[in-house]
């Protein structure tokens, strides 16, 4: 054997002798091992004992809800807890803001000053016509959902109910509430449709009906402004000026204020051309 292999042999022998495997702490290590194994087993058992009942309850509950048809109700209740309510729509800009309630329709109207000015040049021939932008169907507030009628509770019976019992159950069950149509909205919508179809005369009458019936209604500013535009279309400048003056004065906040001012200026110019002032 060479010197170097002697070194390795010595090294191996030294390691063998230094670590024979017997040690005083072997009993302690045994106890530690058994303790760890028992602890892990207990932890596993506890995990099962906690999660299994929860999982079972969820599973059985879901199955019951599905079979009894209450799943949508439960789902809605759960999602209403976890899903945040939708944020209210952003406030309109100051120029177009009006004291209105949510969901009121808004007619998109093009600034009519230029059209009015052009029309004013040859005022002898025809009344000024306002150019309206592409009509957008009025956005309406979602109608309130009619509450679901309460279904009579099902009894677990193998026999089918007799006709007398069925009649009694029907009598006892509260009648399903009739859905309440939004009268105000329908009135306004009718007038608005006429306005966008260009039937100005009929629209004025419809708006007047609406304003008479709902003087403090949700859509009063829109109705008054649209009515003013219809008056201009009809050549009824005095009525139009009267209606627009309240908008220009800021009676409805910033809603249509700028447009109303421009329209009033244009109407003034038109009047000046019709009746030239004496020098």
């Amino acid at each position, binding site marked *: 054997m060479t010197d*170097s292999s002697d*070194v*390795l042999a010595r090294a191996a022998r*030294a390691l063998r002798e230094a*670590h*024979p*495997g*017997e040690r005083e702490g072997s009993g302690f*290590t045994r106890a530690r091992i058994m303790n760890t194994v028992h602890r892990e087993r207990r932890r596993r058992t506890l995990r099962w004992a906690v999660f299994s009942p929860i999982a079972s309850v969820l599973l059985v509950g879901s199955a019951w809800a599905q079979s009894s048809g209450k799943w949508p109700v439960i789902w809605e209740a759960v999602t209403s807890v976890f899903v945040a309510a939708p944020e209210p729509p952003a406030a309109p800009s100051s120029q177009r803001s009006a004291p209105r309630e949510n969901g009121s329709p808004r007619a998109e109207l093009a600034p009519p000053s230029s059209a009015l000015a052009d029309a004013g040049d040859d005022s002898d021939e025809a009344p000024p016509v306002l150019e309206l932008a592409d009509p957008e169907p009025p956005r309406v507030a979602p109608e309130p959902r009619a509450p679901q009628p309460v279904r009579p509770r099902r009894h677990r019976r193998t026999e089918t109910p007799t006709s007398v019992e069925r009649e009694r159950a029907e009598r006892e069950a509260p009648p399903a509430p009739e859905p309440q149509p939004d009268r105000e909205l329908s009135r306004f919508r009718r007038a608005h449709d006429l306005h966008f179809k260009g039937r100005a005369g009929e629209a004025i009458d419809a708006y007047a009906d609406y304003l008479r019936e709902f003087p403090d209604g949700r859509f009063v500013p829109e109705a008054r402004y649209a009515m003013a535009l219809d008056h201009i279309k009809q050549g009824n400048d005095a009525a139009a000026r009267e209606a627009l003056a309240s908008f220009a004065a800021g009676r409805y906040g910033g809603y249509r204020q700028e447009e109303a001012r421009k329209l009033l200026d244009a109407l003034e110019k038109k009047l000046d051309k019709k009746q030239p002032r004496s020098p």
Partner: protein
Amino acid sequence: MIFALYSTMRALSLAGSTPEETLLSRLRAGDTHALGEVYDQHHEAVRAFASRLTGDPAIAEDLVHEVFVALPRVVKRFQGESTLRSFLTGVVINHARHHVRSASRRRAMLTKVGREPSPESVSPESSASGQAFLAALNRALDSLPLDQRVAFVLCDVEERTAGEAAEIAGAPEATMRTRLFHARKKLRAALEQEGIR
């Protein structure tokens, strides 16, 4: 009733098997007493190998603990192609990486603070069987990759054949021979660097 039936069936199935197979079956069934018996039978061999591999008895004790705690889980992989002791040695190798690194770091730190003898003080004649020689040997072993260190401990220290070592380490025999060759070469060079010839 069901438990009694289960116990009877198990007893019948174990009737014709060897004691080690019986022990393994109980271990696989989650019998903690069987784990205790396995420990009693094999802890010395496992501890010796772990100590020789890590070079640190305290860390080897942790390794032994880890191996026996993991045994009920890993024994399901054991198909009986080798002895249980060889299988346990393989489990030690699988769990050794972290512990060997930890022991190596600890030794490096101790050398740095001067609690272990420095290489200059080691003389082969005077300390061949002494602590200084062991310390130098461990430092030399720390310079080997784990695979080569395992090959050296299995073949040279534990005097197993390359075939046995290959089976334990789960590597081909030729690979084990190559690892052993490189391990010896590097170890010799490292020991020379430590001043041991």
